[in-house]
Structures are given as structure tokens and as C-alpha cells.
């Protein structure tokens, strides 16, 4: 499984959206109807899944604001050293 597929699965589950809707550029709030609580939950699940790849167990607050789409999360994780193929 690729990193993108894994993240996409988590997003689909958390936001209750179909795979076809969760494109790399789809904005969680504007395109996928998420609210602040959904985003908090989504970040928590990403942290859970990839905690071994991150220094601490959590994504710093200042980074969270930029995680607005599937593409943004994938790029962020890659920048933290998560391989594109899992």
C-alpha cells in the first residue's frame, strides 16, 4: 500500500466520505464538509498511524493548520521521513 492510499483510507473513515471525493487537492473544510472537531480527530488518527515516524507522538500545533487536504498530509509525512511506499 502506498502512503497516499493509507492516508486516504483514514480520511474517508474519519470524514465519512467516498474515495472518489477525497482527491489530493480536496479541502477538508470547503470541499469535504469537515468542521474543527473532525480535523482534530483526523490529526489524532494520523498521529496514531505514523507515530513511529515522528519524533514525538504528536504533530505540533503550528503544523496542524497547514494540513488541509490529502495532498498536504502526504507531503507533510514525507517531509518527516515516512516512505511513499509502506
Amino acid at each position, binding site marked *: 500500500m502506498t502512503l497516499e492510499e493509507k492516508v486516504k483510507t483514514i480520511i474517508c473513515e474519519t*470524514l*465519512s466520505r467516498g474515495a472518489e471525493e477525497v482527491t489530493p487537492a480536496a479541502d477538508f473544510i470547503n470541499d469535504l464538509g469537515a468542521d474543527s*472537531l473532525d480535523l*482534530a*480527530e483526523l490529526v*489524532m488518527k494520523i*498521529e*496514531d498511524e505514523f507515530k513511529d515516524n515522528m519524533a514525538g*507522538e*504528536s504533530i505540533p500545533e503550528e503544523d496542524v493548520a497547514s494540513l488541509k487536504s490529502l495532498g498536504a498530509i502526504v507531503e507533510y509525512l514525507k517531509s518527516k521521513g515516512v516512505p511513499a511506499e509502506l
Partner: protein
Amino acid sequence: MKRVVITGMGVVSPLGCELNTFWNRLVEGTNGIGTITKFDATEFPVKIAAEVKDFDANAFIDPKQQRRMDPYTHYAIAASRMAVQDSGINFSEENPWRCGCIVSSGVGGISTTEKEVRTLLERGPRRVSPFCIPQIIVNIASGMVAIEHGLKGPNYAVVSACATGLHSIGDAMKAIKYGEADVMLAGGAEAAVCPISIAGFAAMHALSTTNDDPTHACRPFDKERNGFIMGEGAAVLVLEEYEHAVKRGAKIYAEVGGFGATCDAYHMTAPAEGGEGGAQAMIISMESAGVNPDQIGYINAHGTSTPMNDRIETAAIKKALGEDNARKVSISSSKSMTGHMLGAAGALESVVCALALKNGVIPPTINYQNPDPDCDLDYTPNAARERKIDFCLNNSLGFGGHNACALFKRV
């Protein structure tokens, strides 16, 4: 002051999740109690409860929203929607500021609390769900119901343990009586068949431990009664100002004629001997409705099946109505079939009162076999009876010494 009538009702109960089904099963004397299936209760001193069995949350709430809410709120939303449909009211044609909601809960999202505390202890504070707090607060059901129906009038939750559902109806009635609202959704919801709740109530020795015979475990007013059985579900009533209801041609089940609320100010959980607090609530509800004790045809008792409640409630009924009237009134405990739905109980039993008035039928107290000299009134044992009644009372009593009594009137 305005008159207040009931124009719609919805139930989610151990006897069914549709109003007519619920009523028919209640009149037939159907037992709703069985072995706990919601969690493994093998190691628990109490292994029985009255669970809601045929509820499909998907029929009411999409999966994403379901995950954001505790089951108690699922029940509240479902019962509210069924009540609104039953009433035929179209809220988009109403002034939203004059439509409100008090759908409360005794213990709220207790199973969510349990789950999130486990997460906190096992995985740390950063893993607690952002939906933890909105799921557990007892007022969130009222908030979510308001969102669905666009109700912008009075909205909050009343909490008085096992009297919650009835206090909610009392407050909603007053909002209409005093002209603050035209329509109020009122009721209670509970989903407390979970380990911490069963363990906690069991530790108080409040629950029946007749684990090997759940069908006969709940026996209100019977000499062999030995505790209440946890129930769950929700009941919501559409309360409406009388002229408003008439104007839109609504069907009317009954009038909410009076309400009384008192406190024993005596003990944390035990009712005061002699039942003066409960009696005084009944007296106030009759006085506020201008109804005499000899006019009361039916009392839906709190009737929990604990040794103390049923004895003291019997004394309270005698004190409030007088011995002679108390011997003539029909009494029954719906909890003999539904278990004790805590904060939803008073609301569900108000539904029972409204249907008893409308249909001229008193539902039974089932499992009544052994007379108790301390409980010597007519509890409508084991079989429903036809009786045309004009006025009835509904009692609810809660830990903390809270007593509530509503008077319902045939219209």
C-alpha cells in the same frame, strides 16, 4: 395562563421503537427484560437489563453523525423525530423563536465517559476524542434535536436523576403556560446499560439480582420485589399551546393540567419515611390543575420494584389522595415491563398516561403474585383493564430526594 396539550409522541423503548407497538405490548403485559447483551456481564453481580432491541440508528442519523454522538442522543433524536412526525407539525411554518426543546438525560453519555477514561489511562491525554465532551454532556441531546428541527426557543436540560424526564415535561409545560413558547419538545433519553453504570448501581444494592429469571425479576409492589432493573431508551412529547393546536387541526392526546415538584431534603438516595415529599408533589399537581383527589382515576406509579420505593410511594399516594380515594384509584408500574429507564422513565410514563386517558385502558403491573401488607392498593395486577378516566397522575422520584408529579387530563 395558557392551556398545554400533547399533540405528538415518540418512543424508543425495550418494548419497541414505534408508538403503537409499544402501547400494544404494554397493554398485553409484555416483559422487556432479559440477559444483558451490550457487554459481557459474566463477572457482574447483575446480569439483566431491559435493553432496546430493534433500534436502527441508521434509519435516523447518518453514520458520520452517529459517531459524534453517544447512544443516548441517538435515542433522543429518533424519539423526537417520531414525535414530530406523529404531531404533523411543520416547523418551517412556525416562528422558530417560539419553539423549544427540553429533552434531557439522567446520566447522559456515561458509556462514552467510560470509553474515554479508558483511552486516557491506557493511551494518554492526547488520545482522548475531540467528541468526548460533546458526547457526554446531558444537554447535547436538546441541542442536537434543536438543530434538526430548527427550534430556536427555550432550550436546556433538566437533571434530577430518575425524575429527569418528568421535570423536563414540567418545565416545558410552564414555558408554554407562561407564554414563552407555542411548541416544546419535551422528554428524556438514557443509554446506561454499560459496565460502569451497572457496576455502580449494583454497588448501591439498588438493582435486582434475579439473574436466572429475568422475566420475573421486576415485580413492583410484590412482596418478593428485590430491586430495579436498568432500562434504556427515550420518549419525547410534543407539547403545544391549546389554541395553537386547535388552529392547525392537530390531534390531541391529552392535556398537561398540572405539575408539582418537591424535595424530601432527607437522604442522598432513600425516600423519607411516610412519603410526604412525593405526596406533596401529587397534592401540588392536583391543586395547580384545580382537580380533587376523588377525580383521579389512574396513577402511573414510579414503582421501581425496590423494597423501599414501592412501600413509601404507596404511603405517599394514601397521604395525597386520602385512604378512601387511594383504594379506588387504578395504579400501575410500567417499569414492570420496561425496566427503569432513569432519565427517560418519567417521559415514557407520561406517554403511557396520555394513551391510558385517550384509550380508556389501564396497562398492568406484571409479575404481581405475592401481596405485601405495606402495598395494599390496586396496582392493576397482571392484566390491563378498561376504565374510562378523566384525570391521571404520573409520579417520578429521583436520587437526591427529587419528587415530580404531573397531572394529565382527558380532552
